[in-house]
């Protein structure tokens, strides 16, 4: 009994670690797509900012500096995306794909040129990373054993970015549904003509949205290389951007449901790692690929049947032009 409790606790702990970059990216996706811009480039922006975070931190020794460099890099990628598909009305999927390919190639090329370590950055010392924070008041909980475990192992002991990701969800919710900016952002994604004729610049709104998306992706990237990890490894985003996109659709472009979708996908991955090489009763050993594919399979199955139709923002993917 105690052992299975330990397993559950450790599963939940890794769920949170795995879900953090998904949450940042999915919130980025919500900002971008709610304004009508498809953001398939989440993956590339995360990868690029992971690389820049590790490099800048290694060169300066300061993770704070690394974090800001990551955000800057990710926002630049957002601007490229914006220039291609907002200013020049290009295809948003193609532009996003281009960013993914660019990030994948650029990080390896620059990595080899700078450090000659096959695309990796040198490992970072622990004072160069965002390290876990232990909540001080937890000792007082020790009279409730289960709660204590839960707090010590699951809630406490993560790095600052993990907590920031939870804040990002509430930030996203608040901005999108409770502010004037959010009203306009949603309007521009549903019916840009309505925003334009109301005297608000569609182009400006969309650029602002994708810049916020860029910042959030930058946080995701920094989390990978200077908080959760200790350095950049080639292709270290490993499809997380796409899973975040799936979580966003699963959550119907709403922050709170999307958070749960991210946690679910994180849990599945944690479970997959846990079950690697383990014989299950009746089933036997589950191939690791099956577990890796689960988030995608689940998205397709659930979207197809269980949660009803996910309605995307009305004007998503359509460049806005006034005359015709």
């Amino acid at each position, binding site marked *: 009994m105690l052992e299975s409790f330990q397993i559950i606790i450790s599963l939940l702990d890794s769920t949170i670690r795995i879900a953090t970059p998904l949450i940042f990216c999915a919130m980025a996706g919500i900002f971008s797509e709610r304004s009508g811009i498809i953001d398939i480039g989440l993956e590339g922006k995360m990868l690029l900012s992971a690389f820049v975070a590790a490099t800048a931190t290694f060169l300066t020794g300061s993770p704070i500096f690394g974090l800001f460099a990551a955000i800057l890099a990710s926002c630049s990628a957002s601007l490229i995306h914006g220039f291609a598909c907002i200013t020049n009305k290009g295809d948003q999927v193609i532009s996003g794909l281009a960013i993914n390919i660019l990030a994948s190639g650029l990080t390896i090329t620059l990595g080899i040129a700078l450090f000659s370590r096959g695309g990796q950055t040198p490992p970072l010392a622990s004072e160069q990373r965002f390290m876990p924070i232990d909540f001080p008041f937890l000792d007082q909980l020790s009279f409730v054993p289960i709660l204590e475990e839960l707090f010590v192992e699951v809630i406490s002991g993560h790095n600052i970015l993990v907590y920031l990701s939870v804040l990002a969800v509430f930030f996203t919710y608040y901005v999108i*549904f*409770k*502010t*004037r*900016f*959010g*009203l*306009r952002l*949603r*309007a521009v994604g*549903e*019916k840009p*003509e*309505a*925003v*334009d*004729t*109301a*005297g*608000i*610049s569609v182009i400006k709104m969309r650029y602002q949205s994708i810049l916020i998306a860029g910042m959030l992706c930058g946080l995701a990237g920094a989390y990978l290389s200077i908080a959760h990890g200790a350095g950049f490894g080639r292709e270290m985003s490993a499809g997380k951007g796409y899973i975040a996109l799936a979580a966003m659709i699963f959550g119907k472009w709403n922050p709170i449901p999307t958070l749960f979708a991210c946690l679910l996908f994180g849990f599945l991955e944690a479970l997959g790692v846990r079950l690697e090489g383990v014989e299950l009763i009746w089933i036997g050993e589950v191939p690791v690929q099956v577990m890796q594919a689960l988030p995608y399979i689940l998205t397709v199955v659930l979207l197809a049947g269980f949660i009803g139709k996910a309605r995307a923002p*009305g004007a998503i993917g359509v460049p806005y032009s*006034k*005359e015709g």
Partner: protein
Amino acid sequence: MKNTENRGGNEAIASLPPSTESAIELKNITKRFGHVVANSDVNLKVRTGTIHGIVGENGAGKSTLMNILFGLYKPDSGMIFLNGQAVDVNSPEKSIALGIGMVHQHFMLVPTFTVLENAMLGNEGSMLLRSGEEVVLDRLKGLSNNYGLDVDFEAIISDTPVGMQQRVEILKALNRGAKILILDEPTGVLTPQETIGLFDILRSLREQGVTIILITHKLKEIMSITDTVSVMRGGKVVADFSTEKTSPEELAENMVGRKVLLSIKKPTLKVGKSVLEVKNVSHESKDGVLVLKNISFDLKEGEILGIAGVAGNGQSELLDILSGIETLQRGQITVNDKTILPFQDWNSKKAREFGVAHVPEDRHKRGLVLPFHNYENSILGYHRNEDYSSGFLMDKRKILNFVDELVENFDVRPRSSSISSGKLSGGNQQKLVLAREIESNPNILLVGQPTRGVDIGAIERIYEDLMKLKSKGTAILLVSVELDEIMSLSDRIVVMNQGTIVGETNSSNATELDLGKMMSGLEQV
């Protein structure tokens, strides 16, 4: 013939108070799109606190001019004066700040937002919605009571009727502090009752000093509500009138540039035997909505049966079933003694074989393949006919002979067989479709919205052609949202509302008000 550049109304304008009172003055506005001159040297003056109408055919430049005034387009040259001051309106933001509001023909509302959210967009009252909503809601409720703009602030736009959506648009403009209101074809989607309601609102706005520009192609509305009116043709303002000193005939003449017959002579004809019988037809849409409920009527030789109703009350589905595009699900249809039962093979090819021709409601989607040449479109659907094909191959020479004759007989301009149909004006596209269907010698013709987006000149021609066909004994089923059209063409009228036939009447004793009541589902006759 009178001088078509008639500016005789100018004296009427000149006799009004001096120009310092003009809310809007446009001077020598010119706007080109590529080689096309949309507005050429346009001058327009609208006095404060009046309703000014702008009439003109499609492509006369009305909408372009208003989009310039609203700051959506930049004019190539010319000046805009508001209350005597020269202004530079280079964006909607600027024009809104100057007190101009516009209600577009296609509503600029976010379908997933509530009425309140839509009305406040752009002037939300605060950075945060909660505190802003209180402020704006108070203001909007005041405006709403003041002008009779009755709306439900909580409702989601996509669930509200178009009449309310329009009131939301007006509220939205007033919320921004509009003193000048431009309405682009505001009545196209309204029932007669809703139109009356809208005009009441416009009058009360005028009383409180709002200047209104009304763009429409309905001359009757111009006569009933405007104080002054300008006629546009070919990108120019060709005449200004004081409304009480002009007539629909004079306006129409100026719009087209020649005399136009507004009334139609209906040939008096004895109707023959019944050729189309529809019995208890019901239909469910793909979403499972019952769009037709127990529809029954019949149509006789030499008769025009008009189906009136606000768009989206089942007329389109009815046409689709009769023409074989949709499968009949319930009920029975008899076409020239052939009985069609549910789920039997009845399709558009069969329909043509049994003498049913169809002029579809949407000529762009269904009537024509726009990039096709006229000669290709002129045989679309009849391409299997042996006249145009020799076995496997099409006989282009025969087709060209046919289309040359067709464009001549039906006055399709330009008279070209090889121009792509997408380049024709709406009216000429419609003439081409109608020509094709009439040339197939149908004994039943289904016509949907024959004059939607068609100029007055072409409308006249289309009506003539329909009347000619009727005299030959063809039975015509006419579906239209234009009540005037239904009333002047039909012998009998049935009214549809929410998938049912709510009333039937002879056109000779039908009044617009009665039909309007039936259309809005208020009254069963």
